[in-house]
């Protein structure tokens, strides 16, 4: 695992609550807002289960710590998106909180319903970008959520040891977190 320069992280406090909100005007419409919010909620809760940080969705986009939106091409942050595939999304280091997804992608939450070869799993990308928002940079462990690339029609949502070690070194461990449960899931996925 790796961190951003200077190892930035949110707040001094622990436990801590970070708020997030979806943009009122920059969302995709072929997946319902309820389904999108459900996917984001699951993605945030994966990280919350390993560190003493809670994530709460709020309505007020401007005041949220983490602000999520879908954008196309140049969207004013100096990091333009590039159309189908290529760059899928990006997020900024703590305590910036911006999280942008490329509107030009074919986003999917269930590959059984989406046939395109260029379909991209929203939950995998969301879980990855939340890692950036917390302060993790890219990992060279191919199975890790923080690995930089993701093949179309593939899914990578479960935090691996590399992800957990990296984020817990920044924030400490969630008191309810058990390493054994992580090792079990890694062993079963390795066997799979």
């Amino acid at each position, binding site marked *: 695992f790796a961190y951003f320069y200077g190892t930035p992280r949110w707040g001094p406090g622990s436990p801590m609550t970070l708020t997030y909100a979806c943009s009122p005007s920059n969302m995709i419409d072929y997946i319902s807002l309820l389904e999108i919010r459900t996917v984001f909620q699951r993605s945030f809760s994966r990280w919350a289960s390993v560190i003493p940080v809670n994530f709460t969705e709020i309505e007020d986009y401007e005041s949220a710590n983490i602000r999520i939106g879908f954008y196309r091409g140049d969207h004013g942050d100096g990091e333009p998106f590039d159309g189908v595939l290529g760059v*899928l999304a990006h997020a900024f280091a703590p305590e910036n909180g911006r999280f942008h997804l490329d509107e030009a992608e074919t986003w999917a939450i269930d590959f059984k319903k989406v046939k395109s070869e260029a379909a991209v799993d929203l939950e995998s990308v969301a879980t990855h970008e939340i890692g950036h928002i917390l302060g993790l940079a*890219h990992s060279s462990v191919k199975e890790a959520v923080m690995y930089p690339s993701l093949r179309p029609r593939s899914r990578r949502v479960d935090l691996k040891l590399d992800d957990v070690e990296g984020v817990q070194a920044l924030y400490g461990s969630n008191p309810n977190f058990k390493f054994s449960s992580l090792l079990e899931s890694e062993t079963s996925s390795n066997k799979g």
Partner: protein
Amino acid sequence: RITPEKITVITTDTHKATWHNFTRFKDAEKGSHVSGMSELKKYFQRFGYLSLPDNQNDNFTDVFDTQFESAVTLYQQKLGLPVTGQLDSDTISAIMSPRCGVSDTAPRIHATKH
């Protein structure tokens, strides 16, 4: 009469996929000149593996030079690929794979390895 199974047509837009044309650099030799290699170098610069050249007024050349070989080697190390320093099929496949836009060793938002 056997009714034909419902054929699911999968739309293939991969020819429009960004970076799909990087396949033409597969197995390019060090020292070779391949038209458009400057675009591949921009990819490496964007994700933090190559800094802009100071002499040729900020443009990359189309030559597979020593500096680019080092960038390819660093990329392979970072992405957990076999480290060959060459544009082999594993490396080209990884380069073309969709990815996160955050740089791997960004100057703007640096990453330190642990």
